């Protein structure tokens, strides 16, 4: 009697789990496994599928565009794991130490909300806004430079190979600061004020307190932000697509964009699948490394 009721209860449980498992398997896991399988073929998306072994992976290794795209991901990740992290750490401490204490919590909240605005605006709209500002003929930046007497430095910033990647990175830094800030503010609030006060009484200056108390205490938050940022940098597509389409001359192409081109423009589906498999493997490896590091911290 009891055991049959147990079975019935279990059955409801599995029924509840069913929609999620079906959706997730059908729309995420199976397609991803199909991509892995496709990467060993020579499919163009229309014709017959033939087995190609490791050919796609071999061509990737000798493909300059493949390396350039991943190199650009790397440059962007480098920019995003340094500048926004450093800037937001300083902002978070300034906001919690000065603004909250002296001007009150509402003022701090307004500041935090202001810094967070780039995170909430639809990326396409932000990217169009930036393209507008960097436009060679009516762009605000060139007009600003002219106003400052530096007009000769003005140019089509996103169309110039020397500056395009720097500007894409700068725009992403602008986008990313708010995210880091919100996580760090939560972290600063978690720090035991007693440690902080003790250091102040011992005569530690602002910079000293920042470097030897706040940064080490925020270890966990920093690792979260780093992992999220690296993942974001690896998967980046929308900003690049709207700002530059990978141009000029592939100067800002990234892995996701190159995969997209192979799928839908070059009709090299299997090759695109091979690159996306490499990307997936890279993401798994980085996630596992971070998990290991975190487990070691927690022990």
């Amino acid at each position: 009697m009891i055991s049959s009721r147990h079975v019935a209860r279990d059955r409801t449980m599995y029924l509840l789990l069913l929609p999620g498992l079906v959706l997730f398997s059908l729309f995420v896991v199976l397609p991803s496994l199909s991509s892995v399988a496709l990467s060993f073929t020579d499919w163009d998306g229309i014709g017959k599928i033939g087995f190609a072994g490791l050919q796609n992976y071999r061509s990737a290794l000798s493909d300059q565009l493949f390396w350039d795209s991943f190199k650009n991901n790397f440059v962007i990740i480098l920019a995003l794991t340094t500048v926004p992290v450093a800037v937001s750490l300083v902002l978070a401490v300034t906001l919690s130490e000065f603004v909250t204490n002296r001007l009150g919590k509402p003022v701090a909240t307004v500041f935090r909300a202001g810094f967070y605005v780039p995170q909430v605006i639809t990326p396409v709209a932000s990217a169009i806004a930036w393209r507008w500002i960097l436009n060679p003929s009516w762009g605000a930046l060139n007009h600003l430079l002219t106003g400052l007497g530096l007009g000769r430095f003005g140019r089509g910033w996103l169309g110039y190979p020397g500056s395009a990647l720097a500007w894409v990175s700068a725009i992403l830094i602008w986008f990313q600061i708010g995210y880091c800030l919100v996580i760090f503010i939560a972290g600063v609030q978690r720090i035991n004020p007693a440690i902080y006060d003790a250091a102040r009484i011992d005569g530690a200056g602002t910079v000293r307190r920042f470097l030897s108390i706040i940064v080490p205490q925020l270890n966990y938050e920093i690792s979260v932000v780093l992992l999220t940022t690296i993942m974001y940098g690896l998967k980046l597509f929308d900003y690049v697509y709207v700002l530059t389409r990978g141009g000029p001359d592939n100067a800002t192409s990234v892995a996701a964009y190159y995969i997209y081109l192979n799928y839908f423009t070059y009709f090299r589906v299997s090759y695109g699948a091979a690159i996306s498999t490499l990307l997936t493997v890279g993401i798994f490896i980085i996630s596992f490394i971070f998990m290991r590091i975190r487990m070691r911290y927690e022990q």
Partner: protein
Amino acid sequence: MSSRRISRRLKRIPGNVAAIIVLLVVLIVVLFPIFIVWINSFKTEAEIANFGPLSFPKSIDFSVLRSAWIKGSFGIKFWNSLIISGLVTGISVIVSIFNGYVLGIGRIRRANLVLFYFLFGMMIPVESIIYPLYYFLRVIGLYDTRLAVALVISSMDLAFGTYFMTSVFRAFPKSYVEAAKIDGCSNLVLLSRIVVPLNLPALFAIMVFFFIWSWNDMFISLIFIVSSVKYPMPLGLLFFSGEWVRYASLTAAGATIVSIPSIIYFVIFQRNLVKGITAGGMVE
């Protein structure tokens, strides 16, 4: 009123004025790009051509915004976005609640294995699923539908939702569950009458997340939607800005129109969002 109070406060911050000035400068730099595009959507083409992008608009004139709204048919696009985000939020929240309930409160065999399955899938990048899905959705006739976009986004989001809700429900007091079971509550009654009502803040946080994530999506709809009458707002803006690329004030107006719903959501949901980000970041 309180200019005296403010000045009294300012006196109390002798050395910190610099810090606040730095904050203000950074804030202005962060908000300036949005601000400059907004004010230029109130100018005519001629005004931008004559006075440049940095001047203040001579008058508050909505005619360019109105014509951008009509030329881009942003009204329809707004509805499309609302339909897609509404579907995603509904599907993902319900499925995440089910999964979280089973894995966090119910006792099933191999619960951790199932959780691990979702966790593992959370790492899969959209680039690696997009082509097989593109093919599959064409075969089953769902290509070029808003439903397809909503299903794909929901399926990707529900991995996070499952993880999030499982950890929320695991922290839910076991005594409530046991008391209800002793009273003879079935799982569905327990879930809908006790567990859901007592966890509304967490549910609301992921709802806001799902809604805003799907609202901001461009990639999925770019791949799966071809008819312009079905474009959501971001995709609509993308093609609008391509079509009117030579028109400074129209482009600015398009970007302004599409950025406004995001700002409204932010103002409404600020608190939930910030709480969710912090919790979500920690979960990941």
